[in-house]
């Protein structure tokens, strides 16, 4: 549809060409003198004084002005610059114009973009991302290599070399990577609105089957032999010929029927068929032609024509929906997707006040969510305007909070595991200590004091009580040691009981400090399960610890019972509190608890030294 100049003028509401011409004409006619008699009008208009264009042509042609490049020479200088995109702070030199803005940022630094790469926690992996084809290690490897090569998958697939893993094609890698990204995106709470999330999710869309098919197809296309191409050509021509014959036949038949019966019955089907065939073959034809012409795209290619024809229809639909939306808004109508299954009478939601169907978080999570929100200073109280939108927002808030709680829970569990492992490590280390403090890398006060104790205990068994006294004093000096720090150098059973008390307190405080350590029982259970089949010592340790933890959270009586039971294995068991101290120190929890158990801890280690 070629728009004429007149159309353009219409659109832009410019005056028509005739208008413009007439005004200029009028002007010129008024300015020029009357033409003399005897000369035809045409001739006069050529030679008369209304020919400024002619004179202009005789004027001396002037060359284009040389651009003024500014006076003086431009000074260039080799300068050192820092590239803010570099992490290593390497200084390079480059030539720059000497100017006032010398120390500005390296302009190319902004092109050093990085793609956002996803990371996932173990918990997320086990919940969502497991794939029988992939191990966690290999997935980790994939993510690290994707990060390293900035998602350039051709390079990635080239360098991909996971020892012991099955061979992976580029599509395998892409499929795995993108599916994980999609899953994470879908399950993690999203801060923005739904549309951007959808958009991002779409950008991670990857259909492996289709991709393979596509590549196969291209491969086949490229690998055709000349004979095959010729055959295809021949077939195509044959098709054209058949099509034409059929059309001609249909036309003849139509004419025949018209002349014979004078009716147009029975023609519709044929014409429709013809149409369909026409468009199909026509489309094919066009594709063919465009292919033949090489890369020049035809204006009336099926795609562009489709766009032309679709565009108005699409916009039309959009406007109607927009109108409907406005109307719905006015009438307070909300349209929702009806569930696929035909809803029966019972499923009907009776009339209700919006606020009475609030988005209550899941029953078991509700208190946790409320307390978490309180912690974050978020007022979760009843809505002032319980509109649908606000209720949805509230629901999303609760969902996000639930995710937060879940994450916290996992963090705590991992913390616990780390503590257990550290306990085991340090336990082993303290066994191995021969020359005290020599290769000790940990800066924990607990460990230091422990080694100190070891040194002192080496002086002889008599010095024990003294050593303990000293250490305890030290512990108290550090600050808020609890009342437990006093009874030093007493008989062992008592010390043991005290230990338990002290640890109990410490644990209580610990729990308080954390404030959110729910699910601890469960965690403990898992840890215990994991550690089955370990050495005696480890089991002892763990059990002791687990019991302590569990008791502190639940009831104390049980703790005492357990302690008594454990008296026989005092020395092994006493390692648990010690290691806990170490852990707590590491995590920087409340000092009072650290100190209290610090004292008893030294005692414990001293004891062990004595025994060993």
């Amino acid at each position: 549809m070629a728009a004429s100049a007149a159309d353009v003028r219409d659109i832009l509401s410019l005056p028509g060409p005739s208008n413009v011409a007439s005004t200029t004409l009028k002007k010129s006619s008024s300015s020029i003198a009357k033409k003399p008699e005897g000369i035809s009008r045409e001739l006069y208009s050529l030679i008369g004084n209304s020919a400024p264009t002619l004179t202009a042509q005789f004027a001396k042609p002037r060359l284009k002005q040389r651009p003024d490049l500014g006076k003086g020479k431009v000074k260039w200088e080799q300068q050192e610059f820092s590239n803010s995109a570099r992490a290593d702070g390497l200084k390079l030199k480059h030539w720059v114009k000497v100017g006032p803005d010398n120390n500005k940022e390296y302009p190319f630094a902004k092109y050093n973009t990085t793609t956002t790469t996803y990371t996932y926690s173990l918990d997320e992996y086990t919940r969502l991302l497991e794939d029988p084809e992939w191990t966690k290690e290999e997935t980790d490897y994939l993510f690290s290599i994707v990060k390293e090569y900035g998602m350039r998958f051709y390079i990635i697939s080239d360098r991909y070399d996971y020892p012991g893993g099955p061979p992976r094609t580029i599509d395998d890698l892409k499929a795995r990577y993108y599916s994980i990204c999609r899953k994470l995106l879908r399950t993690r709470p999203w801060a923005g609105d739904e549309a951007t999330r959808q958009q991002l999710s779409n950008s991670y869309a990857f259909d492996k089957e289709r991709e393979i098919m596509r590549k196969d197809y291209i491969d086949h296309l490229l690998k055709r032999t000349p004979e095959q191409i010729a055959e295809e050509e021949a077939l195509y021509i044959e098709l054209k010929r058949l099509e034409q014959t059929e059309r001609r036949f249909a036309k003849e038949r139509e004419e025949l029927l018209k002349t014979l019966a004078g009716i147009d019955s029975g023609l519709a089907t044929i014409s429709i068929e013809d149409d369909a065939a026409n468009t199909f073959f026509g489309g094919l034809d066009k594709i063919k032609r465009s292919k033949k012409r090489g890369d020049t795209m035809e204006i009336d290619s099926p795609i562009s024509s489709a766009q032309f024809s679709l565009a108005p229809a699409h916009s039309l639909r959009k406007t109607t929906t927009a109108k409907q939306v406005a109307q719905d808004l006015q009438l307070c109508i909300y349209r929702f997707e009806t569930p696929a299954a035909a809803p029966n009478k019972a499923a009907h939601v009776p009339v209700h006040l919006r606020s009475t169907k609030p988005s209550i978080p899941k029953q078991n999570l509700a208190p946790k969510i409320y307390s978490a929100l309180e912690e974050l200073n978020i007022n979760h109280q009843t809505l002032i305007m319980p509109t649908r939108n606000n209720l949805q927002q509230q629901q999303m808030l609760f969902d996000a909070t639930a995710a937060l709680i879940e994450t916290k829970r996992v963090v705590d569990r991992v913390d616990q595991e780390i503590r257990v492992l550290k306990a085991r490590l340090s336990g082993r280390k303290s066994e191995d200590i021969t020359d005290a403090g020599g290769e000790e890398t940990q800066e924990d006060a607990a460990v230091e004091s422990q080694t100190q104790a070891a040194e002192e205990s080496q002086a002889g068994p008599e010095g024990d009580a003294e050593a303990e006294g000293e250490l305890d004093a030290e512990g108290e000096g550090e600050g808020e040691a609890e009342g437990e720090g006093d009874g030093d150098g007493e008989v062992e059973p008592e010390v043991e009981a005290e230990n338990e008390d002290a640890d109990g307190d410490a644990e209580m405080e610990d729990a308080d400090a954390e404030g959110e350590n729910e699910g601890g029982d469960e965690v403990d259970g898992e840890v215990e399960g994991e550690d089955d089949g370990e050495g005696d010592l480890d089991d002892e340790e763990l059990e002791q610890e687990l019991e302590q933890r569990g008791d502190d959270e639940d009831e104390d009586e049980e703790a005492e019972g357990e302690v008594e039971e454990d008296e026989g294995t005092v020395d092994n068991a006493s390692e648990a509190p010690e290691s806990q101290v170490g852990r707590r120190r590491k995590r920087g929890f409340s000092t009072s608890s650290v100190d209290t158990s610090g004292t008893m801890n030294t005692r414990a280690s001293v004891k062990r030294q004595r025994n060993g």
Partner: protein
Amino acid sequence: MSGNDKVRVRGLSVHRPIIYGNTAWLLTPEERATVNPDHTHRWTVALRSAASAPGKVGDADDLSYFIKRVTFKLHETYPTPNRNIDKPPFEVTETGWGEFEIHIRITFVVESGEKPISFYHHLKLHPWGPKPNDPASGELPAPSPPLSPIHSWKYDEIVFSEPFQVFLNTLNAHPPTPLPKTKRSLGPGTSENSFTDGTEAPEFTQDMEKEEADRLEAARKAVIAETDKRRAQLIEKEQELERLKKAVADAQ
């Protein structure tokens, strides 16, 4: 009602914004002389459309096209505590001295085919105390003018999901007055609403809804940021755990 009208319109729900609550005034001595000497306040409990008529709290629209009756169940000490109001305005005005829960029950028009709904409103007679977030809450609240009314209103929406076609037609014939964009002055009063300054009668506005939505969104963003932080922590810790596991394995 033709058979066609009895069909529920699937996949849509219609709501009507309402407010319910009460307004209360302190009685003047002259008025007190005319009523029960114990009574100190005159109050009006009402159910109204959410958008405000000029000079009033709510009541821009007549709700009788979908509400057949509103029953206010007052305290038993009142004569005929069940007050059935079949015509707008759906309100009860009484005098009294104490606050109590008023049971409100809405019966809908027959063609809606819906059961009545009921809810409570706590009758509010006394001024609202200082706001908890008020920085100057340590001081005594400025005594409200003795005759300025106390307002206690709640916004809510009555949701009809999948209504009958005939009822939907009725509803569509009466679009509710949209809430004003911003608050207009409705006259003096103290109100519960935290968005108002407490000296004017409350009005529910689109801005308030927006503000609340924004607040919730901000909260959600905060929570998500916190989650992201925790997750980063978690991943770090897991790596540490991994290292430790290796260390333990090496040690064995």
